[in-house]
């Protein structure tokens, strides 16, 4: 009995994925541009300055969304890794591998904007705030995964090795977050306030949500594009292999 493949089942076939993503991408890109423009307009023209930090609160509108996407990116990689390890879903490897550089970029962005926000707030570029530190370690996990993908030549083995590491990483991430919080409270000099979003008043919340939506839409546009590129890269690889085989067969016939 071949049960009808569910949504993810049908997605397993790269050609169907390419067709679907091809249809969705233009709309999603349009949505991203609209959201980004609306968000930026709200941030620069509507959102009031914070009573404490003044205008520097504007940095929060990119810092917080990119930190969220750093986490979401790793969640996507973990889910895709489980899909690839347990259900051997062929597109899962593609999804996990292509999400890594994007997630890493957003993590890096969260770190940069976090430190640029820290300078006016506390006078230092890097403050060992619990959340910033966890994002830094998350960045190392991303680097480790990307390095592992590079280090293993054979794509299917690389996929499974990276999937194992991603799952081990995702099990450890909450523990790391917990231990960094613990470490932070132990060494908490009273002066440093937590890097928290100030009181969420709707005039600040709405631009933040719009920016978050814009960033998320951008993430998916990039992720779908990167997945398509990965599917094509694997097809190019397969074609090159057949070329090599054909050439070898040719030589065999002539020899």
């Amino acid at each position, binding site marked *: 009995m071949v049960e009808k493949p569910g949504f993810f089942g049908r997605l397993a076939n790269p050609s169907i994925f390419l067709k679907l993503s091809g249809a969705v991408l233009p709309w999603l890109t349009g949505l991203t541009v609209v959201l980004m423009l609306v968000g930026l307009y709200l941030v620069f023209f509507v959102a009031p300055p914070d009573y404490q930090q003044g205008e*520097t609160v504007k940095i929060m509108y990119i810092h917080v969304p990119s930190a969220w996407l750093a986490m979401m990116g790793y969640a996507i990689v973990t889910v895709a890794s489980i899909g690839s390890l347990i259900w051997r879903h062929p597109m899962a490897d593609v999804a996990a591998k292509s999400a890594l550089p994007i997630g890493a970029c957003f993590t890096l962005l969260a770190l*940069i904007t976090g430190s*640029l*926000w820290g300078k006016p707030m506390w006078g230092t570029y890097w403050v060992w705030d619990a959340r910033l530190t966890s994002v830094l370690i998350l960045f190392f996990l991303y680097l480790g995964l990307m390095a592992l993908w590079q280090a293993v030549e054979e794509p299917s083995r690389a996929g499974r090795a990276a999937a194992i590491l991603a799952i081990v990483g995702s099990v450890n991430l909450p523990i790391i977050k917990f231990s960094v919080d613990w470490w932070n409270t132990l060494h908490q000099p009273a002066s440093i306030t937590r890097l928290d979003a100030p009181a969420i008043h709707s005039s600040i919340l709405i631009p933040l949500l719009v920016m978050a939506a814009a960033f998320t839409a951008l993430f998916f546009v990039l992720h779908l594009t*990167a997945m398509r590129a990965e599917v094509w890269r694997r097809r*190019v690889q397969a074609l090159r292999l*057949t070329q090599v085989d*054909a050439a070898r067969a040719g030589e065999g016939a002539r020899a």
Partner: protein
Amino acid sequence: MNAILDLGQHAGFIWASYGATLILLGGLIAWIRADARHQLRLLDELEAQGVQRRSARAASPQGKRGKGKAER
């Protein structure tokens, strides 16, 4: 329009972080799009040379170039 001009005495940091966002995300967007185009071009070249994927060849033994252009 004056809201943009006086971003307070830390305007430098605000522009720096938005600048960093622009550079980083812009670079990421450019790199991913370029990579996608590059892979597609390679795929077209290989297909133009009549190199067939095994599954395509199996699907059409009479040697026609696969089942038309590979799904884009």
